[in-house]
């Protein structure tokens, strides 16, 4: 393994300008009207996420948690290699559906985001958007070494090393990549945690929103989306 070049310093001067179509500007509509638009403001709600309070009655909260634990709907977003081991879970051989787990195509319908391994900066941006669009209470599970401490891409210029810097992670599954059986074990563990009321990732995200945003913006240089979109 080559030693690190001590003299190398990353370029801090250059910034990425906002894309043309996202800048506030005047446009002419098809019917001839001239209007001012500001795409990043017009289309999104900018309100920051809020902490979701627990129910006043513990028994009600327990009931909620029981229900949540038994309907883990996973966002079908294969962010990295580990996604290939999720496919067998959707088929009769491993049949994750029997545990109340299923995959949904859109963030709106899902409450569990699986980060399947490494995240390149480009995908991190999409993962953040997907996460923020999901309905709470929502959970994040990190698959494999890459989400824990960078994995085998620890020296890559394009992948993050610690997922918990950018998204609140509820559970990690070791492996490169974890087998379907290990994933199922992870889901069972997640269910236990949810039932015990210990999966407070979404609230953690809301509480530490500023920190998360700062971390995200430190690596995503062309931040061309609103701070929170849901």
């Amino acid at each position, binding site marked *: 393994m*080559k030693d690190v070049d001590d003299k190398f310093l990353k370029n801090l001067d250059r910034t990425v300008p906002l894309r043309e179509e996202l800048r506030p500007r005047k446009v002419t509509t098809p019917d001839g009207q001239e209007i001012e638009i500001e795409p990043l403001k017009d289309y999104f709600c900018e309100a920051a996420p809020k902490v979701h309070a627990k129910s006043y009655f513990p028994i009600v909260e327990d009931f909620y948690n029981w229900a949540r634990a038994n309907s883990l709907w996973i966002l079908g977003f294969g962010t990295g290699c580990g*996604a290939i081991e999720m496919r067998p879970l959707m*088929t009769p051989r491993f049949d994750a559906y029997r545990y109340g787990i299923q995959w949904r195509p859109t963030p709106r319908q899902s409450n569990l985001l699986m980060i399947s391994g490494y995240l390149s900066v480009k995908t991190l941006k999409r993962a953040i958007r997907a996460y923020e669009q999901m309905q709470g209470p929502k959970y994040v599970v990190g698959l494999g070494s890459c989400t824990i401490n960078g994995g085998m891409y620890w020296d890559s210029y394009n992948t993050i090393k610690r997922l918990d810097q950018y998204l609140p992670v509820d559970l990690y599954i070791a492996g490169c990549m974890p087998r379907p059986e290990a994933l199922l074990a992870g889901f069972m563990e997640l269910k236990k945690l949810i039932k015990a009321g210990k999966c407070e990732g979404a609230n953690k995200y809301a509480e530490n929103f500023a920190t998360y945003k700062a971390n995200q913006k430190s690596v995503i240089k062309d931040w061309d989306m609103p701070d929170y979109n849901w």
Partner: protein
Amino acid sequence: MFSFKPDRSQYPAPGPDGKLQIDLETGKYLKLWQGPNHPGITGNMSVELTVCGDEVVEGKTHVGYLHRGFEKLMERRTFIQVFPIVCRVCVPEPDFNEYCYAAAVEDLAGIEAPEYAQWMRTLILEMGRFNSYMMFLGGIGGALGLGITGQWMTYVRDLMLDRFEELTGARIYHMFILPGGVRGHLPEGFEGRMEEVLDTAERYLADIDRVMFSNSVFKTRTKGVGVIDPALFEPYGVTGPNARAGGVAKDLRKDSPYLVYDQLDFEVATATDSDIFARATVRRADVQTSIDLIRQILKKMPKTGPAMAKIPNVLHWKIPRGETYIKGECSRGEYGYYLVTDGTGYPRRINVRGPSYTHAMALLEHLIPGTNISDVAALMVSLHTYPPEIER
């Protein structure tokens, strides 16, 4: 047949050069992103479609969501340290990376892998090809709403993964083909268990024939759709089954035999129509070839023999200056490693030539205009591209 005939009467007038002038602000055109988080996309990539009505008038492939900078990382690693990371370049068929890299290193270092290792490598590559085609056959059905093929083929692929697991010690990233040979020998009773898997696979494939290839819906939606003019094969670098579906029997296993393919008996499957259906049938026939080849290899391969050639101490392995290109026929076409060494213990440059690179970028962008939105997914799957090998 019900072929897609867009109604262009409502389209904005083309420019003086006859080309479409796409101005989004006219409201006639719409940008539609398919991917990266989209059920109709292969892996983690995206296609930026410009649609007018339900006709796609422009498509741009966007990649880089899986970019890890492999070619840079390889330059930081010693020759043995590159070995574990190469397989990650292509997730569904990782073995080709291992083979091409190992063979490239052997070529420049002047090492010859032992005969047993050559046979074993061929076996692994064919098993990997089989798996890759299982992904394809599942995917092409899925792209057209035929969910059952995905269920069946994933199951069969899983059985093959079990064989991979007992042979190589891993399910997906096998890391079995080392520069200098392979890591081990066949486990006891492997042939019998493999035969069971192949039998099961053939049964399921017969069902696939009935449920997919003889299915009027499937035929209607794939025949005559996404035709690649064979004249485009060379300019667009089309190789593998995509070219074979257009009647060009391009197959490096025959054209430029590597490993022990010259000692194996097989035919190259071709088709003539060069449409989605033809590309699917070619691959269907190729699965059968792979099954036959696996049987042949297990029968013909030596029972014992050294698995590894003598290699220098890998901790400070230096390879003299040189460059080489090693290629092989993977399930998608020509896969190759271009390796440049400079006499140090690290590669100077490694370039991975994945077939998806040309198929998913230039070719797909060329094919998309004029198709229906609903066909884009099937068109993309029919090219059989794996995003991680595009951006590496």
